[in-house]
């Protein structure tokens, strides 16, 4: 088997007495799209933040292209991060910067792209998430939650990254926009060959954007399979997700 693009090996993370991840093992192959499912508060966001180096696990390691990045120093990590895009659950837009500078942040501050060019590319990225060019000069506080999420998405994909993380990309969006976003993510993977890890609660989204699906519960992956296997899975938690019926889940 080829080296996975990204791999979690026995990752444990706790906050005080709250044990969130407990020896989590998971991997994503190059050019695949993984959907991470799980109930609220089970540590899906923490899983991604550990992979990004934003949280340091107590045990285990994270491998990017086969290289252990868990305890990398600043310079090395900047290099590892160059090809990564992340959409945060709460969008996490810089509220002191207008929308276009948010979207073009990496271009301007890390890639040294001239501001005029960064602006043009930011407006282009905004178009991909169905936002009008006029939005570019607004400030994040002037946008609705759904619009902020889309700006966050535009920011994540603006630097042509090869590994993408989406934390609940369609939560809070209307079905039409959500459908467009799902297609955009799908497109990034199929036509550009990106690897994607998306957190979602929405099975319809998962089926659209993901090749593989993993279910996180109690700090471990309790079920993993392809998107098409979802409907026939016999794990009670997956069944409960599919049917929307909490019976059988403690």
């Amino acid at each position: 088997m080829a080296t996975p693009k990204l791999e979690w090996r026995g990752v444990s993370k706790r906050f005080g007495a709250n044990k969130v991840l407990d020896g989590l093992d998971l991997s994503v192959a190059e050019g695949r799209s993984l959907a991470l499912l799980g109930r609220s508060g089970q540590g899906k966001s923490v899983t991604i933040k550990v992979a990004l180096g934003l949280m340091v696990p107590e045990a285990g390691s994270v491998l990017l292209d086969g290289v252990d990045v868990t305890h990398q120093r600043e310079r090395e990590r900047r290099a590892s991060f160059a090809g990564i895009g992340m959409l945060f659950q709460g969008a996490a837009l810089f509220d002191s910067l207008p929308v276009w500078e948010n979207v073009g942040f990496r271009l301007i501050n890390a890639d040294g792209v001239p501001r005029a060019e960064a602006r043009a590319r930011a407006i282009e990225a905004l178009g991909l998430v169905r936002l009008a060019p006029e939005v570019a000069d607004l400030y994040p506080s002037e946008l609705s939650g759904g619009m902020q999420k889309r700006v966050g998405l535009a920011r994540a994909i603006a630097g042509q990254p090869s590994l993408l993380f989406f934390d609940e990309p369609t939560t809070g969006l209307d079905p039409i926009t959500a459908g467009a976003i799902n297609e955009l993510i799908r497109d990034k993977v199929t036509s550009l060959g990106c690897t994607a890890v998306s957190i979602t609660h929405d099975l319809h989204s998962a089926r659209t954007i993901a090749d593989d699906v993993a279910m996180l519960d109690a700090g471990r992956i309790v079920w993993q399979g392809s998107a098409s296997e979802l409907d026939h899975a016999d794990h009670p938690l997956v069944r409960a997700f599919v049917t929307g019926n909490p019976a059988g889940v403690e």
Partner: protein
Amino acid sequence: MPHSAPGGVIGWVNALGRAVLDGVAAVGRVGHFAARGVAAAVTPPWYPRQILGQFMAVGFLSLPVVGLTAWFTGAALALNIYSGGDRFNAETVMPQIVALGITRELGPVLAALMLAGRVASAMASEIGAMRATEQVDAMFTLSTEPRRYLIAPRLIAATVSLPLLTLLADLIGVAGGMQVSKLLIDLPYSIYITNTVDFITRWDVESGLIKSAVFGFIIGLMGCYHGDTAKGGARGVGRATTSAMVSSAVLILAADYLISSIFARL
């Protein structure tokens, strides 16, 4: 706890020991944060726009409050020399006392205290809010070091701006004293200025500026440190804001005494 008498002493010793250890650990954390902040400030990459923006926020926008403070301080100093100092005819040396007091002590300290209130708190709340809303994390994922983008510009701007503001405070403080001298003892402006200039030495002004650079660094450091370590959402940010203000004010006064006593020995 009336029944804790036997264990009371041990409890006290334990608490004291813990407090000392906590204190040492806190100093260590701040020192580590400061060292990394300075390292980021003196090595590339720099973000000129951020540095400029901080100069605007820390330096330029503090001009009114520092100017007003200096004016009233100079004026009040002159007034007190007049009404309290007439016991030994100090009004004849009013310009000299005002100049000395403003340049060596009151200019640097009061400008710094004003900035502790205005700037350290603003930095803490800004960075704290960015932490709480994951903006700092987002910056990491965009290949930009928050330490370089957020912390370094603030440290640079605070350390450089405060001496400049202090220079301005020196000027305006002398002007305030001059105005009061004119009103109270009818001392002509020209003589007031001549006396001030003849009396004051380079070192009087320079020692104040050296102090204020240290104070500026303290303000930037406390603002950034408390913002960066803020925990627990809006409440945490509120606490960080207060801590930044109080700790920078206390550290400024302590550093003032320390530096003054070093200078006194030179």
